[in-house]
């Protein structure tokens, strides 16, 4: 069975695409979008899009006058604002020297498409639909040797019911540059399909935090393709808490020696939410490190999915790849799936993975109770500790409090509900 796409969605994409003169990359992408992924496809088996395929949706025409929601931001951070998938210079901060934001030309967009198409994201729906329907591909560049001190926040807002939004970003950190980047997804739309290509040149360093907090009816199919060059470093952390269905899929290619990747995430799910963190890490050269810690807290009838693939090529000797996922179920009707996959073709590697799904530990609860702490409070303490412990291990020190507070906001509603 394939999920057919309603003719009107295909047509509306085509119509949308025709608005633009720079149609080369759009045409290719549009022609490549044939259907929603089938549940027979291995990586979509646990996250099915059947209910999305039955929705009537069309790509949004960005309203360039729409105001932002003044999402509270970190003090002093530089804001890059997207509304309805379109970059809004009028609502964004002035950029410091060494950081540049530009619109890709048609030929550059074509190259962008080719790079994504070479990756294993080539058939991802967000690749094809978002390249067809994005208002423009925005490129954020950090110049060589620039160490950006300010935090950057990209805020994605807007969207309308029955419409899809398509922010497409190209992030390039040139040689020996560094950046702290926080991205917040706060769409009010039916479908959000953010697409990103990230290239870290030699010795570049990126600390990235993504907070998925879209509207309760939103489907978010985030697709990310990352290339890491020699001695570059990506510390990536995703917090998935919003939307009815959020899937963050990241493919990371370790292409240069001594590149280091942390690809961590937390999902906090309640009601009927479906949260999915899918990752694929490709160790193509020797001496690279990748680490993944994923934690989930699930209540209500929610579902969590972690799919983590690590592929170590024959040449990638002395690879260090670690992966650990843990989920805690707070209700009998919640469900967590973990699917670690290791494909190792080199013989001198350290690779480990582990996955657990369980409830809160009875011994720990009793220990807290025996000190006079009531059951509700004891559960709250343990759930927070479960996440805080992980945040402390995986988020840069300067952002611990910020990330923990964001997680706490989602936890408070789930803990109250599961009393």
């Amino acid at each position, binding site marked *: 069975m394939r999920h057919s796409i309603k003719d009107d969605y295909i047509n509306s994409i085509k119509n949308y695409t025709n608005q633009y003169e720079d149609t080369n990359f759009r045409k290719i992408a549009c022609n490549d979008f044939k259907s929603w992924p089938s549940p027979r496809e291995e990586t979509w088996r646990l996250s099915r899009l059947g209910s999305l395929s039955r929705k009537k949706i069309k790509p949004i025409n960005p309203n360039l006058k729409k105001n932002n929601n003044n999402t509270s931001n970190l003090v002093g951070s530089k804001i890059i604002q997207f509304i309805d998938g379109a970059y809004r210079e009028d609502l964004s901060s002035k950029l410091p020297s060494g950081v540049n934001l530009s619109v890709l030309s048609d030929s550059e967009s074509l190259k962008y498409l080719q790079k994504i198409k070479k990756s294993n994201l080539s058939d991802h729906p967000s690749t094809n639909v978002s390249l067809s329907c994005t208002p423009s591909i925005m490129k954020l560049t950090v110049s060589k040797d620039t160490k950006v001190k300010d935090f950057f926040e990209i805020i994605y807002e807007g969207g309308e019911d029955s419409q899809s939004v398509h922010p497409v970003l190209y992030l390039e950190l040139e040689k020996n540059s560094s950046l702290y980047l926080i991205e917040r997804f706060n769409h009010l739309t039916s479908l959000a399909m953010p697409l990103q290509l990230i290239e870290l040149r030699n010795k570049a360093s990126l600390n990235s935090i993504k907070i998925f907090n879209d509207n309760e009816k939103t489907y978010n199919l985030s697709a990310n393709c990352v290339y890491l060059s020699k001695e570059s470093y990506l510390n990536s952390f995703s917090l998935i808490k919003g939307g009815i269905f959020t899937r963050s899929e990241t493919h990371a290619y370790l292409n240069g020696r001594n590149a280091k990747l942390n690809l961590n995430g937390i999902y906090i799910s309640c009601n009927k939410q479906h949260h999915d963190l899918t990752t694929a890490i490709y160790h193509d050269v020797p001496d690279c490190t990748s680490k993944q810690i994923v934690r989930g807290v699930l209540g209500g009838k929610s579902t969590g999915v972690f799919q983590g693939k690590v592929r170590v090529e024959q040449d990638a000797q002395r690879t260090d790849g670690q992966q650990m996922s843990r989920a805690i179920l707070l209700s009998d009707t919640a469900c967590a799936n973990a699917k670690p996959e290791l494909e190792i073709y080199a013989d001198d590697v350290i690779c480990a993975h582990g996955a657990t799904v369980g409830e809160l530990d009875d011994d720990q609860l009793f220990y807290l109770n025996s*000190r006079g702490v009531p059951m509700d409070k004891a559960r709250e*303490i343990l759930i927070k500790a479960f*996440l805080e412990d992980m945040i402390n291990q995986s988020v840069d020190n300067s952002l611990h409090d910020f990330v923990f507070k964001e997680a706490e906001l989602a936890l408070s509603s789930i803990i109250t509900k599961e009393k």
Partner: protein
Amino acid sequence: MSLLEIKNAHLKLDDKNILNGVSLSVNKGEVHAIMGPNGSGKSTLSYMLAGRDGYELEEGEILLDGISLSEMEADERARSGLFLAFQYPVELPGVGGMSFLREAVNSRRKFLGEEELDHLAFVKEARKEASKMYVKDEMLKRAVNVGFSGGEKKRFEILQMAMLKPKVSILDETDSGLDVDALKIVSDGVNAQRNNDNAIVVITHYQRLLDHIVPDFVHILSDGVIIKSGGPELALEVEKNGYSGLINAA
């Protein structure tokens, strides 16, 4: 009136009779030792008293300062003034020692109708008590019991006891895993808290702990009943002749 009264306690685990009619009265100011061989029901008794899920009485009653504990959950019992020092203190990754202590102390204070301590006052109090138990500041910043040595875990248990000021403390095999020096620190900590308003029940295999925490009464538990009670000399008899002689005589 006794501070702790256990009346004819019966308890089954997985359909197996573990406690078969334990009765014990502990008055204010007293220290009682409960000794017994492996499998005699000592730890079950301590879990039953603390109110662990699954350790409910089949028959009998427990009264703390005249109030029945039977219908109380573990947290309520603790707030009412019952304290269990664990044989194996549980690790709580991610839960800082100081905030854990504060949560516990404030739960008890709230119950007693006392004002919750503010952060500064609490930290001051905690540091004072911690230094008596040779618990360093650094240990209070770490996650509860995570990476603690055996001695550190037990010292942290007694620190909690000191902070919570319970009416009745049950010390479950507090000597296990302790070397001679650690045993002394822990025992001194316990002795410092003995007064005429509280009571302590020490559960142990061995007499050696009782050299440090000298009991007023010693009880021998076997097959879920107290088969003999006496003074401190009973512990010496166990040390000399083992449990088998006493059990056979009973």
